[in-house]
């Protein structure tokens, strides 16, 4: 309920904000037209959409997964930039709508940009850079990545970011303060005690989460990027038994893309490891019949994925050039002592055909634990 109300609040405030911006923009563009069409205020409506078919080859055959995510970009002046994405998804007959991000950036100088609003968490690379279905090389997210996974996916707060060249190398950084995650005590959802809830528009305590990411691109051709991210927050409700509970999460990521002559094509490697550590707390045991028994655990979870893709982009034959093969391995490690402790791993193999630079047909085979799955997806940005 709280989530719905807070979501509504943001959506309305953004509506009001965009309406005002729209008015301003209309005025701006009129003024600009008067100034001989040299308008600086610029809109762009883009986004992406995906259609997924999934089957296990036996009982399940689902064609009902449709995703549509419009994105509004607006540049009212040289140094101000606004971006917003609405994510809508029709899944098993239910329509999910989410405000993926809505934030405004002010470019202070060459090296520093200030951002405020709801932004994709700069925590590793998956959520921020790879999750959009026309970018993701497989139809699914790696195990535990994405919404409600291990590690934050978006934050509401303020951030400073930028990119700095250093000789033949360059670095990029972002630091932020945000509402941060909240602890799920399992009272409403038994079995989820100790997990974190993200994307909170209303904070449950006075403390702000702080975090950031540093990326290093050591080579002048930008082929390799190594990144490290952290976030620290108090996650318990103020004035509850959980008010001292904290969470520390960290992530390491690697990205490598290069045309390799002797392979006649492009190699693309992406990897990320997320670790989450929620301090020890007592939770109500969901398996205790009296409903009052407590158990304690240290919520240490981690997830890892590694992905390698190859596209023979240097071949002369056009049809072959557009194919791409992908392999991904991902692991979800659950903490010791949690109820239903079972680590899971997943293998995904994919074959993609790129119709254009932004439209792709993906076919994938996936094995999660012992379960096999086949997926077919069409994804495009527009």
């Amino acid at each position, binding site marked *: 309920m709280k989530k719905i109300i807070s979501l509504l609040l943001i959506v309305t405030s953004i509506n009001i904000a965009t309406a005002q911006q729209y008015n301003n923009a209309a005025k701006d563009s009129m003024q600009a037209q008067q100034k001989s069409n040299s308008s600086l205020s610029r809109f*762009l409506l883009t986004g992406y959409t995906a259609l997924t078919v999934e089957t296990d080859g036996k009982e399940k055959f689902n064609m009902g997964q449709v995703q549509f995510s419009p994105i509004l970009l607006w540049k009212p002046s040289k140094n101000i930039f606004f971006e917003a994405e609405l994510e809508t998804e029709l899944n098993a007959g239910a329509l999910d709508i989410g405000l993926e991000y809505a934030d405004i950036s002010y470019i202070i100088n*060459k090296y520093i*940009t200030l951002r405020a609003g709801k932004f994709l968490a700069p925590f590793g690379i998956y959520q921020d850079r790879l999750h959009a279905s026309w970018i993701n090389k497989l139809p699914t997210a790696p195990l535990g990545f994405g919404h409600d996974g291990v590690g934050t996916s978006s934050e509401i707060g303020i951030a400073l970011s930028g990119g700095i*060249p250093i000789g033949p190398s*360059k670095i990029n950084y972002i630091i932020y303060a945000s509402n941060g995650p909240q602890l799920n005590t399992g009272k409403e959802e038994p079995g989820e005690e100790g997990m974190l809830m993200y994307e909170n528009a209303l904070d449950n305590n006075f403390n702000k989460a702080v975090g950031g990411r540093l990326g290093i691109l050591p*080579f002048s051709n*930008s082929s390799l990027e190594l990144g490290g991210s952290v976030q620290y927050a108090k996650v318990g409700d103020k004035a509850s038994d959980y008010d001292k509970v904290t969470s520390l999460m960290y992530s390491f990521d690697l990205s490598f893309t290069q045309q390799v002559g002797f392979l006649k094509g492009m*190699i693309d490697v992406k990897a990320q490891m997320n670790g989450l550590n929620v301090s020890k707390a007592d939770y109500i045991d969901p398996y205790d019949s009296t409903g009052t028994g407590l158990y304690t655990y240290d919520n240490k979870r981690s997830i890892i994925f*590694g992905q390698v893709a190859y596209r023979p982009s240097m071949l002369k034959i056009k049809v072959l050039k557009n194919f791409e093969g992908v392999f991904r391995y991902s692991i979800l490690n659950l903490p010791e002592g949690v109820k239903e402790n079972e680590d899971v791993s997943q293998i995904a193999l994919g074959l993609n055909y790129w119709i254009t*630079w932004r439209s792709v047909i993906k076919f994938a085979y996936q094995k999660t634990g012992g379960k096999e799955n086949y997926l077919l997806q069409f994804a495009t940005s527009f």
Partner: protein
Amino acid sequence: MYMKKIIITSLMIGLIIASSVLQQGCTVTKITERGGAQLWSENCTRCHSTPPPNVYSDEQWDVISTHMRVRAAMTNDETEKIIEFIKSANK
């Protein structure tokens, strides 16, 4: 079990990276000495397929380049050189 697979995979990735670094040899040019076309072909592909210049108008590119600068934390100089190249190729 996991550890072994992870180590093998990382070793393979390490090898690919090492070999391509060797390929680069000693011809390291500073980013500041690279032209817009080169920066365009090297940078955009880090995250997604590189869009050809003619799919958007100059005005649209202006918005997109700011989006990418902010989202991908590209440096100011890189972004400016790339957009200049795109606009010159977009005729």
